[in-house]
């Protein structure tokens, strides 16, 4: 079932003379035949129409004819965008997200919208209103989340490139669990315009692909200033090969010591392999790790509680065809339209922002955030990249973790990066019991090129053996 397809493989087929229409049709069939529940919507008509245009020579670009799947949290004009929720089950955005415009402009073909945890709130896709996706390596296991559909689609080869979004690990986690590459860009590198917000100050849209170079290609295309997102910055990204033999590597002790043994083993195996290649590393400590998860969840839930206030059934989305007063109506819409995990986070976030608690929780979390940033800054004075396992466990079984707190603990290694706004990539670095283990490489702000070059090394020397 793990059968990813690279951009160059598709290009090869085109250079053999295959039509875009045929290639795209084949991918669409693959999506329909998939048993992994990776997609919520398939944009067959739009994709085939675009394929025909390409066949007629009307479109070109760096993604010409490449099938791209999109996490259903990213707005696509004319294609329903549910964010994995009943409350947006029939919502069709009237505009494209910035990243979608960029992909279309480069001739990429949007073939469908991938499954995800409802409003990105989860680590497995199990909170999706449309049911969980399955892990291509073992269908009884979760693909990770929240961008689980995207990563599983890349791993099963039903799309070649995908976009996810990463608020606390939502790109890196499923990339690790599915054995593919996922990038969380520096905060501000990619416009969030059109991304349905979960926690604005933490999240970035990021590419998922079968290999580092493909992921880098997609990042090149989506990166860059967009005036519609005031937090986006005047930076672009270009992937350049570089010599990484002298790169100073720090291994974050707290992120490796507390994880599952099997994950530890594969992580060290990968690190040792890099050492054999002449690269040096040191073990380092990231203080404040004990507080990061709490700080992250307070900030994320606070922002979420506010972001999700707009779903009241008045203008769009789930609504009830019955007369009742406004308060009853919107309460009922939200009671019926949101899932349990979403409600839990709205309640907790509302609580954290309430009078009397704001200082105790929200402001305190902001202070922790500042301390984390300082801690990273300090480490980056001595190291170029920091390494750690992406996830604390191997992919677990669907339904295995029921307790919300245990689930939140799964994000322990990924959230510090979001709090600090840093770039990170998860690259597959080993297999254990037939399940992939992802290695997370964290870099300085806007130093995507460095982490991706290290990731490329891991991919070539460790993963592909």
């Amino acid at each position, binding site marked *: 079932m793990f059968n990813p397809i690279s951009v160059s493989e598709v290009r090869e087929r085109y250079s053999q003379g295959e039509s875009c229409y045929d290639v795209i049709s084949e991918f669409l069939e693959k999506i329909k035949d998939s048993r992994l529940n990776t997609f919520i919507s398939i944009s067959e008509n739009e994709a085939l129409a675009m394929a025909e245009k390409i066949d007629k020579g009307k479109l070109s670009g760096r993604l010409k004819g490449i099938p791209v799947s999109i996490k259903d949290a990213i707005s696509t004009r004319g294609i329903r965008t549910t964010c994995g929720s009943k409350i*947006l089950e029939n919502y069709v955005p009237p505009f494209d997200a910035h990243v979608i415009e960029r992909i279309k402009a480069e001739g990429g073909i949007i073939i469908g919208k991938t499954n995800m945890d409802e409003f990105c709130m989860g680590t497995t896709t199990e909170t999706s209103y449309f049911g969980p996706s399955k892990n291509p390596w073992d269908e009884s296991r979760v693909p990770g989340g929240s961008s689980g559909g995207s990563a599983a689609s890349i791993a099963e080869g039903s799309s070649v490139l995908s976009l996810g979004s990463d608020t606390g690990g939502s790109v890196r986690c499923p990339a690790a669990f599915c054995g593919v590459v996922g990038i969380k860009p520096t905060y501000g590198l990619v416009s969030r*315009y*059109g991304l349905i917000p979960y*926690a604005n100050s933490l999240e970035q849209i990021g590419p998922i692909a079968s290999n580092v170079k493909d992921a880098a290609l997609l990042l090149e295309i989506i990166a860059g200033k967009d005036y*519609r997102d*005031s937090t986006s910055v005047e930076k672009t990204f270009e992937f350049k090969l570089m010599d990484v033999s002298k790169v100073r590597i720090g291994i974050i002790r707290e992120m490796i010591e507390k994880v599952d043994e099997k994950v530890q083993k594969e992580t060290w195996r990968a690190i040792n392999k890099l050492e054999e290649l002449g690269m040096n590393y040191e073990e380092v400590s990231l203080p404040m790790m004990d507080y990061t998860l709490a700080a992250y969840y307070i900030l994320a839930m606070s922002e979420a*509680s506010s972001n999700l*206030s*707009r779903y009241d059934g*008045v203008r769009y989305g789930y609504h009830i065809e019955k007369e009742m007063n406004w308060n009853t109506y919107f309460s009922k819409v939200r009671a019926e339209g949101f899932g349990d995990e979403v409600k839990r986070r709205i309640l907790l976030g509302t609580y954290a922002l309430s009078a009397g608690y704001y200082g105790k929780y929200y402001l305190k979390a902001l202070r922790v955030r500042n301390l984390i940033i300082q801690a990273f800054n300090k480490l980056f004075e001595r190291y170029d990249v920091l390494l750690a396992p992406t996830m604390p466990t191997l992919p677990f079984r669907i339904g295995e973790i029921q307790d919300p707190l245990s689930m939140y603990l799964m994000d322990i290694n990924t959230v510090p990066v979001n709090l600090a706004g840093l770039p990170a990539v998860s690259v597959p670095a080993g297999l254990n019991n037939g399940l992939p283990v992802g290695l997370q490489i964290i870099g300085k702000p806007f130093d995507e090129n460095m982490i991706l070059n290290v990731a490329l090394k891991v991919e070539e020397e460790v993963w592909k053996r």
Partner: protein
Amino acid sequence: MEEVIIGLEVHVQLNLLKSKLFCQCPTDYHNSEPNTHVCPICLGLPGAMPVINRKAVEAGIAVAMALNAEIQEKTLFYRKNYFYPDLPRGFQISQYDFPLAYGGYVTIETDSGEKKVTLKRIHMEEDPGRLTYPGTIDTARYSLIDYNRSGMPLLEIVTEPVISSPKEARSFLNKLRTILEYLGVFDGSLEGAMRVDANISLKGGARAEVKNISSYKGVEKALSFEITRQKNLLKRGIMVEMETRHFDEARGVTISLRTKEEEQDYRYFPEPDLPPMEPRSLIPDVKDTIPELPDAKRRRFMEEYGISDYFAKVLTSEIRMADYFEKVAKVIDPGLAATWIADILKGELNYRDMEFSEVFEAEKLIQVLKLLAVKKITEKGAVKVIRVMLDEGGDPLKIVRRLDLMVMDLSEVERLCDEVIEENSQAVSDYISGRKEALNYLVGQVMKKSRGKADPGETNRILIRKLKEREKDSS
């Protein structure tokens, strides 16, 4: 009399800016179909992000400067969270800590002289949409929402509790409106342009907040009602409760909305999609755009045109009137222009409940005053022309001709005077024998013969001359 303490929160719509506060939707929705001036941003569609309209910030800075407030080093937008159907995101993007400006004052005239109404703060925020109810708010089975107003740039201007009467509140608002209109960012005549929340207390009592008073006259009414209500409570020994009240404009009363315990918790936190701004850095750009303000213009009018303080004050109370005056005063004697604009024209407007924006062009008044100056028409005739132009419009010369207002030729008046003297020997001899009131009768006769077209002043003068000649002849 008990001491009254009033503080105002004034919401001012910057309705002359081209686009809304966080999107590019045009602001000229006032005569448009509902929900035609909207986009994903001001409809709060998921994924659409606000972008600060720099022009709105500059306008805010200009207002703050004109109100003598201190622009802050750093300013930040916050989310004010509450559910209401006119609020498409479930929160309003407003300001909280780090507002645009602190302090400032507005100078007003009171019965006891000039007074500085000091300001607490000035901040920016977006307007929600607008709810309309078929019939009345109490009986309507449903309401309709128009999001055209959603995202309109607002300034909230908060005074210190230093206003001591409804009348003072009114003159503060009038002055504020004048200043805002001078800045060219605000048209106070548009619906919803200025909305006021008022805090009122009597010395020793708790304060009540009256929300959302939406007309200038309403403010004075609401405050007067509220003061009477509180006085009556105190008289009966009942404590005034700290509460929020609603002003029912139609009935002229305030009604309790909620007590302090039921106050909403807005859960303010910084808007993560909008980075902090440094408004002070924009001051140099904005400074040059600030025009001459009312008080300065008033002083200049007195010096430059030699008109009285009273006229200067009236003329500068509206930028349109001030500009109008200056146009007229270029061609016509400024004293005459001032009288005719500040007194007569303004009076006619008030009588008709018209705004100065509805007045005919200055060129037309110039024509009228020119005719008056050369005595082609009488003052009465001039007023008549003005009235017709206000009521029906039209060209002054044509109106003069149509209504036959041209003053009679002087030789013709002389002739009529001679006739009247011949025909009224009794009145003439009365006059000569010292009963000067007989003159009025004679003037009346001339006017009658001329069917009102003789200039009364001239007629008077001519008659006196002729009667004196008679007197000489007879003695």
